[in-house]
């Protein structure tokens, strides 16, 4: 059994190749000048530059947070390059035909079809390669419906009124250390606007890839769902296999106006480092959405990658009758560390939230759930239900739960449950008795354990997530 486990732990990261694409990269280092250069490269208006510089000034005064249950070597922020773009991107392609074939091949390898065949799948994709958005498909088709789906750098130029109004309205420049850094140096990301009463005709998707060595990726996503609209958004990511740790500090802001609904799904598969914890991505992400009256935000995440994950997708339930949901599967193996969870801030009347978190730890990894449920004074009749379950595979790993529950209103009802256990011998016995080998049995049991979350994922992602788990778990039977 241990042999199998070892084998699984030594399993190679499938997306770990490097694409040999000529790129233009800033020399490492961070100062005001770098920010001015990023801003100039993006041909940004003055207000945007001012906004970045303000964030940078705030960031310089902030200490790096150390409260999470993770250990990592602190980064030297001067040794990271804050901008890297494939060289041939200098004059941007107008259509897919003009995109560097090497790039397309990269995405093909990752199994992300950018080309028209995608139309069958009905997904519009924005692809972010290191610091720039490479291609966005179906822009025109979406435009017919009034939906804006473009790189955020385009949106800053083309839709400044929307960006200026909403950028930083949910995650401000001084929100936290990594968010402030992102505000100062973010290079690209996706921008989505769904007009009033529109149901976005297809799923929107962004794929992130870190390719260059010693670069950090700082993308920024802003999604605005106007009154009564609906959108489903998918996000995926990979990075090459490197010995150095690379930083990914993204910010995602969701604005969900009255009666709107945003469904945000993530399959995170950054390079997790080798079995000894060498290399891998530091994934320090701030994700937050605000719900106005009767709006709904649903976060679904499947976290299998990254050396260190520090991520708490949150909902501010400001409007009455608004709904927040959080469904998460976090799998750690090898020397991975994850500290992830959610915050549900109930401010409006009759707000409801559901948190389902499934943590699976294998190898010598540590997996923590950290969450906050806050019932404000005005949260009359609000409800929360939280369930966080942990599954331990092997005796060298750890599973932890740190839930904060704060209630200021007697009519609000909060329920929280958590359990920790291993794959039970009874379950294993039953499966094996019916002729399943131990590996299959564990995979099946784990899939069942995660079922509640997987069923929330859009179909294509659910398949990908299920496969990813299966691969990650192969042989982890101890």
């Amino acid at each position, binding site marked *: 059994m241990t042999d199998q486990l070892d084998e699984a732990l030594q399993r190679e990261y499938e997306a770990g190749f490097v694409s040999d694409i000529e790129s233009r990269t800033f020399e490492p280092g961070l100062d005001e000048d770098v920010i001015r250069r990023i801003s100039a490269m993006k041909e940004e208006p003055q207000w945007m530059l001012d906004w970045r510089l303000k964030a940078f000034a705030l960031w310089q005064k902030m200490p790096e947070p150390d*409260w999470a249950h993770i250990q990592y070597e602190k980064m030297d922020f001067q040794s990271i390059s804050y901008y890297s773009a494939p060289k041939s991107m200098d004059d941007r392609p107008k259509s897919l035909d003009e995109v560097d074939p090497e790039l397309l091949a990269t995405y093909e390898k990752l199994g992300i079809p950018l080309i028209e065949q995608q139309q069958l799948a009905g997904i519009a994709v924005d692809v972010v390669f290191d610091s720039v958005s490479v291609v966005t498909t179906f822009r025109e088709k979406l435009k017919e419906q009034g939906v804006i789906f473009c790189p955020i750098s385009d949106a800053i130029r083309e839709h400044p009124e929307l960006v200026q109004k909403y950028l930083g309205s949910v995650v401000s420049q001084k929100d936290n250390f990594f968010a402030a850094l992102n505000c100062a140096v973010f290079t690209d990301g996706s921008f989505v606007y769904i007009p009033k009463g529109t149901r976005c005709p297809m799923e929107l998707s962004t794929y992130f890839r870190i390719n260059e060595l010693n670069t950090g990726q700082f993308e920024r996503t802003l999604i605005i769902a106007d009154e009564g609209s609906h959108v489903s958004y998918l996000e995926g990511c990979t990075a090459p296999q490197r010995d150095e740790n690379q930083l990914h500090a993204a910010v995602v802001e969701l604005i969900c106006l009255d009666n709107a609904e945003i469904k945000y799904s993530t399959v995170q598969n950054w390079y997790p480092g080798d079995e000894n914890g060498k290399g891998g991505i530091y994934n320090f992400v701030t994700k937050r959405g605000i719900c106005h009256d009767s709006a709904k935000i649903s976060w679904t995440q499947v976290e299998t990658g990254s050396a260190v994950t520090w991520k708490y997708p949150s909902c501010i339930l400001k409007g009455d009758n608004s709904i927040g949901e959080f469904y998460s599967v976090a799998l750690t193996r090898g020397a991975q560390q994850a500290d992830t969870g959610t915050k549900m801030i109930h401010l409006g009347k009759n707000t409801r939230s559901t948190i389902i978190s499934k943590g699976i730890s294998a190898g010598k990894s540590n997996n923590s759930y950290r969450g906050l449920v806050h*019932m404000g*004074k005005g949260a009359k009749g609000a409800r929360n239900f939280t369930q966080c379950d*942990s599954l*331990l*595979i*092997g*005796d*060298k*790993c*750890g*599973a*932890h*739960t*740190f*839930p*904060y*529950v*704060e*209630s*200021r*209103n*007697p*009519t*609000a*009802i*909060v*329920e*929280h*449950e*958590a*359990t*920790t*256990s*291993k794959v039970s011998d009874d379950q294993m016995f039953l499966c094996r008795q019916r002729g399943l080998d131990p590996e299959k049995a564990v995979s099946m049991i784990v899939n069942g354990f995660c079922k509640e979350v997987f069923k929330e994922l859009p179909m294509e992602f659910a398949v990908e997530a299920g496969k990813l788990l299966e691969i990650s778990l192969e042989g982890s039977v*101890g």
Partner: protein
Amino acid sequence: MSSWLANTISEAEQVNDWLSPKRAESLALLKNTPWPNRKTEAWRYTPINVIERARFSAANDTDVQITAIENLDSIDLVFIDGIFNLQASTNDFPEGLFITQLSEGQSCEWALDGFKKTKPNKHFFGLINDALATSGCIIDVAANARIERPIRIVQSFTSGSQSHTRILVRVGPSAKVSVVEQLQGDELCFNTSFAEYDIGEAATLEHYRLAMQCQAAISIGGSHFSLAQSAKLTSNLIGFGSQLSRVDMDIIHAGENAISKLNVIYLLDGKELFDLHSSFEHTVANGTSDQNIRCIVADRANAVFNGRIHIHRDAQKILASMNNRNLLMSEDAQVNTKPELEIYADDVRCAHGVTIAEIDEQAMFYLQSRGVSRIDAQVILSFGFINELVDQMPNVAIADWLRPQLRNRFANMEIR
């Protein structure tokens, strides 16, 4: 550094007795620990600046009425403002029970090692207590002794007093004893009171901490237990909340097959605050622990709970559970709770649950439809909520004495 802390440190530097080597360690740590504030995780919901603002004197020489527990035939040890009161105390002890004053502790050869053995170093006021506690007692229960009468340690505090007491208890192998820590005094005072229990192999300890100081009192303390192989602990904590009440309960499973159970009830009213930190450390395999925390919060009170189950690497076959239920009785009351699990072994079963809500309207309706007034219905339901834990108390006399006290507190509570 605040002037209060500076004074405390210089006062501690004057203390010179048999515990000096241990005190020096804690004092050194204290000097390197910043004054806790809102950003200090352990004091996140509990502001402690009242301590700096108030003025205290060492002790008052007054006569104090000690609250009796009816029908409880106990061995009493009475401390008033931290000073041992001989008249009010029992002075004949049954066979197998040895009680020494802390000031004469050099005569117990185990006491120096026992000091700070189970109390963790992380508690800021625990360090102050380490450095300053010159009063208290050392209780030794001989192996195989069965002490039938409960030992009741009464600590009474008068207005304006400041005191630091320490209790060390060693329960010998296979011995059985019951200890009641009773704290009283509602006037403005500041006391730290820590107790350490070393429970030997197959020994049984029945423990009660009646933290019933109310109103202006500032009380910080804790009971810390270490369980050897097959030891058994049942602990009951009653908290009444005051200007600032903080209790830490640490239970360390140091030997296999130990069983521990902690039941806690707290009832808060007015602007009171009660902060409970409980921690179960399973350092070895095979063990069972269970904790039940029930809390009723009325008026503008603040109930804080931080529970922790920590299962160490290779501590397999552990069954641990934690259940925290809170009733909010008013618009301005608040509950802040954080049930943590930290688990490094895979063959364990751990569960925790939290609920926060008001009294169930359906149950209220049921009682009212049968002619019970709304207020009475509220008392019946909320009393039922905590009485479940009172009923589990092994000592009937204490449970019987508590019930009317708890009911009384309901009657006076500000319910909406």
